[in-house]
């Protein structure tokens, strides 16, 4: 698979602080790529530089064969973005929001089709502020998909959601990937990365400390002689929670 994103020696300085410290990695076309790391590790800054929202202090980013710094507008036309804060215009219905965002890409979109994909057709006439957390994130994804992007960026998409909404969003992300869209996401949840991501990069203090498939990262750790007391569990607490409360979405 060819690489759709190539990041080389990327750095972001805020005064003396190196928020992103000479990182290099690439994302393969069609994969779900995860960036993990504690708060302040530089995940969001890295994402925003790739999205053309922040200028790198040094280094280069190529996306779909385009230089993000020099061809920012062309890059923005082929990516979809979901930011951590998912606020949208007030007083517009979801249909009108999707229509307006489509216009920003100079496109006429079919809002109902997009809402269908994220299971929000019954909210077509509602306003964004009336949505629950999970619905808001699904709306964010629908808005991110208005231009049928090559790459979809999701910044902590499941933070603050209940388990039902989280599982539902995972299904949605897998569905997006199935359509051929590459997904780059950040997360704090290791189970999420294990379920969704083909490959993950772990960041800390602005550096990528390891990058591989989740399976390989675990193998490598075990190969170093890591072990923890093994408790053979046939179910965990989340399984209990979902078995008692059901998989149906609450909102």
């Amino acid at each position, binding site marked *: 698979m060819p690489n759709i994103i190539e990041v080389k020696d990327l750095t972001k300085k805020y005064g003396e602080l190196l928020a992103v410290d000479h990182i290099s990695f690439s994302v393969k076309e069609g994969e779900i790529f995860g960036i993990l790391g504690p708060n302040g590790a530089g995940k969001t800054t890295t994402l925003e530089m790739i999205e053309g929202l922040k200028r790198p202090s040094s280094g280069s980013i190529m996306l779909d064969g385009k230089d993000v710094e020099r061809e920012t507008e062309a890059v*923005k036309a082929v990516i979809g973005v979901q*930011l951590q804060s998912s*606020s*949208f*215009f007030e007083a517009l219905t979801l249909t009108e929001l999707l229509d307006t965002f489509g216009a920003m890409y100079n496109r006429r979109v079919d809002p109902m089709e997009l809402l269908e994909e994220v299971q929000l057709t019954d909210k077509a006439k509602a306003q964004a502020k009336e949505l629950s957390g999970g619905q808001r994130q699904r709306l964010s994804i629908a808005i991110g998909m208005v231009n049928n992007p090559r790459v979809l960026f999701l910044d902590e998409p499941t933070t603050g959601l209940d388990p039902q909404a989280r599982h539902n969003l995972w299904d949605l992300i897998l569905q997006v990937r199935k359509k051929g869209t590459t997904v780059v996401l950040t997360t704090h949840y290791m189970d999420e990365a294990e379920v969704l991501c083909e490959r993950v990069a772990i960041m800390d203090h602005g550096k990528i400390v390891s990058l591989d498939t989740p399976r390989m990262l675990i193998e490598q750790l075990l190969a170093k002689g890591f072990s923890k007391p093994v408790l053979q569990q046939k179910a965990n607490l989340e399984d209990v929670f979902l078995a008692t409360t059901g998989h149906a979405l609450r909102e």
Partner: protein
Amino acid sequence: MYTTYKLTIAAIKMLTRNRQAFFFTLVMPVFIMLIFGYIGFDRPQLIDVGVSSEKPTPQTAALAEQIKKFPNLTIHEGTLADEQEQLNQGNRAAVLDFSGSSIVAYTNASKPESQAVVSILNQFISSATLQSAHVTPLVKVESHEVNAHNLRYIEFLLPGILALSIMQMSVFSVSFMFTQYKQNGVLKRLLATPMKPIQFVAANAITRLMVSVVQAVIFIVMGILLFHIHVVGSYALLLLCVILGASMFLGLGFTISGLAKTVDVVPVFANIIVFPMMFLGGTFFAISNMPGWLQVVAKLLPLTYFADSLREIMTKGAGLATLWPDLLGMAVWGVILITLATVTFRFQEREAA
């Protein structure tokens, strides 16, 4: 073009569905105008005069009758003691006692109009004296009435309130919305699309210019229907002034959004600038009534140029020849405020470093 058109449609929907904005843009100014329009500050004020007459002579009784018929006086008849009590409480400008053959005038020193009552009385006495002596007056005053177009208060007020409402709408609707969108990340989200920020700004500016024209239409129609004003000057010039005035205040609105980091400080910034202009900008009273130094300041305010231009066109039918100082004033303010807006307002907080 398609993008800007669709964004304008969206901006119109957002603005018209905002009840708070609707209230402050249209309902409130209309109320203010109705209240001030119906109070009628331009009716002549009546002077309260107390009259007491106990056993008057025919001469004093005749004078008392003349005084009672004089227009602009409200006559209160009563006993001397009662009327003096009213005078002491400040409810009378003067009390005239027509008892016996002499007339005593009690006046309130703190009311300037009480002197007028005394001179009116004196005039009656002298003309009565002349008449009884069968003397023809040396000079006769002949008065001709001219039906000049006197500026009624509502005609003064309406252009001022219109200018004020357009200022409020332009400044507040822009500064609140854009600061909120900056604060909650909406503007950042827009930056992630290929749309140019200027397209979004233009869509919102166009929307507000349209609203200001709608405001002008509503005010003028209301003035014509309810207060029987007539617009003397050209509507095309009015439109030009409305657009110019609204543009400079949109510049101010965006400057405030640029300076304010959070929505909480928007009303503080906006009111510091807008509130003094409400009183100094010639909306409710003429600038010529202010002390000299304040007049200098007041004349340079953007709202003053704006209100004055609307008033000159509507009441005097002013053309470009007399309007140019106002137009120049607005143009200079427009350039200053829009430049400030482009310097301060960003879709994203500037990065340190």
